[in-house]
């Protein structure tokens, strides 16, 4: 009676390099990318008005951090980002459950929701700013508009994928409707909510930036657009790279959390 867990695990005696091969190769590619960027301007003359190098970006970073501007802008942007995502969960999860559980609701709403999900809703940002203003509420609405659909569709798919056999198991053991929701539906759908969050986070970041491009007086998106306007390309890139790092950390963090929290899905 052996446990069938045949995932390839390097032996404990393996060297540091072979144990972390994929991470090391990935890091090496990133380092090479920046090195090549820096090197290309040793050959090609650089017009600092339009171009920048990693070393100048690094100097810009130091500036932004020392002045506290970067942290302030990030904190300002974090508010609509967080509120919008929260609203997306609160609305998207129940709506997705309804669409997945009630077949007729699913049929009725699927085409409409698909249109919204597939279209570039950021195009609505100027309109939303007119409706809801340039403050936190306007930006929150834009984030919500982009982030809600991944939750709706993932949760609906999760509900439809619930194993009917498990529902019968609970019924046969005397479980009631409430037990089916709590013991089967909820645990089945939870991984789909988290998977939806992984997609929603990326879209929410875009939403914050776009919202702040259009109308804002602070925030990381505003900073990027302002530094662009005044040709402070180094600091603009410092801000862009920060957003990129945040995006990677958030999505990769959620991916790792998924693997840790739902091991049975990783093995499917």
């Amino acid at each position, binding site marked *: *009676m*052996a*446990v*069938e*867990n045949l995932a390839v695990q390097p032996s404990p005696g393996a060297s540091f390099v072979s144990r972390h091969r994929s991470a090391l190769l990935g890091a090496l590619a990133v380092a090479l990318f920046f090195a090549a960027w820096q090197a290309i301007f040793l050959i090609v003359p650089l017009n600092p008005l339009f171009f920048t190098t990693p070393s100048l970006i690094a100097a810009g970073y130091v500036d932004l951090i020392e002045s506290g501007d970067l942290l302030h802008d990030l904190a300002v942007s974090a508010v609509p980002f967080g509120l919008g995502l929260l609203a997306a969960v609160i609305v998207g999860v129940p709506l997705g459950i309804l669409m997945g559980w009630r077949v007729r609701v699913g049929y009725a709403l699927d085409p409409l929701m698909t249109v919204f999900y597939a279209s570039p809703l950021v195009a609505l940002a100027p309109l939303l700013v007119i409706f809801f203003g340039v403050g936190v509420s306007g930006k929150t609405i834009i984030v919500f508009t982009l982030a809600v659909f991944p939750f709706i569709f993932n949760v609906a798919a999760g509900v439809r994928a619930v*194993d009917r*056999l*498990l529902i*019968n*198991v*609970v*019924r*046969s*053991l*005397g*479980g009631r409707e409430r*037990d089916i929701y709590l*013991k*089967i539906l909820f*645990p089945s759908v939870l991984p789909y909510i988290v998977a939806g969050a992984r997609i929603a986070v990326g879209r929410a970041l875009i939403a914050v930036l776009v919202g702040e491009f259009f109308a804002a007086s602070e925030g990381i998106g505003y900073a990027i657009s302002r530094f662009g306007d005044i040709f402070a390309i180094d600091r603009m890139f410092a801000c862009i790279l920060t957003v990129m790092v945040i995006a990677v950390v958030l999505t990769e963090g959620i991916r790792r959390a998924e693997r840790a929290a*739902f*091991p*049975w899905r990783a*093995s*499917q």
Partner: protein
Amino acid sequence: MAAYIQARNVKLTFRPPNRAAVSALDAFDMDVEDGEFLSIVGPSGCGKSTFLNVLLGLIKPDSGEVRIRGKKISGPGSERAMVFQEFGLLPWRTVQHNIELGLELKRTAAAKRRHVAERLISLVGLAGFENHYPHELSGGMKQRVGLARALATDPDVLLMDEPFAALDAQTRDLMQVELLRIWREARKTVLFVTHQIDEAIYLSDRVLVMSKRPGRTKKIFDIKLPRPREYEMRVTPEFNDLKLEIWNTLKDEIVI
């Protein structure tokens, strides 16, 4: 005196939307004695799994009735439990918590649940795997969990719907031996649906052969092999004669 389980004139027609109605059971009768191990064999789609689901209380028949100890079945009840072909384990629960599911649904106290689960884990030979998740187990081990879960609520009747069909041939043979051992200890009435004639003979007191759809009882065979059953009995002339006889009864019903 009426039989322990009594099915009379059970009729059931499936009416799927946009498709022709399918008569699964028509005038189906059967009797099962207390403590008996009865197997049902029949062609695919003859309604044998459907009948188990009627017995379980998940499907209501259109007419006719099934009684257990004289009491009419109107829904699931704790005196019956099912072992499913595809195991039906909750993937997010450990072995221990899967086994506790039925007791949890009956609002049994946690300490009592743990105690019952521990006893069953050792009965089905899963000691040391309490905290494993189903995806970490082999097929045979998964079905041991399925069996332990069904036994946890201490039912009088164990319904087994092709429980070993998803297992490889050798695991299947070993699980049959295990099932007989567990049955001896737990003393339950067992209804066992299978496609395999030798599995049915080896395990059962009686083998019921069903007709093709809509399913009726075609013939019942008494299996007079002594108990405890030994693996060697499967190669005796007596066993093979029985196997041939059952096959001859069954083969006319099979539509390919």
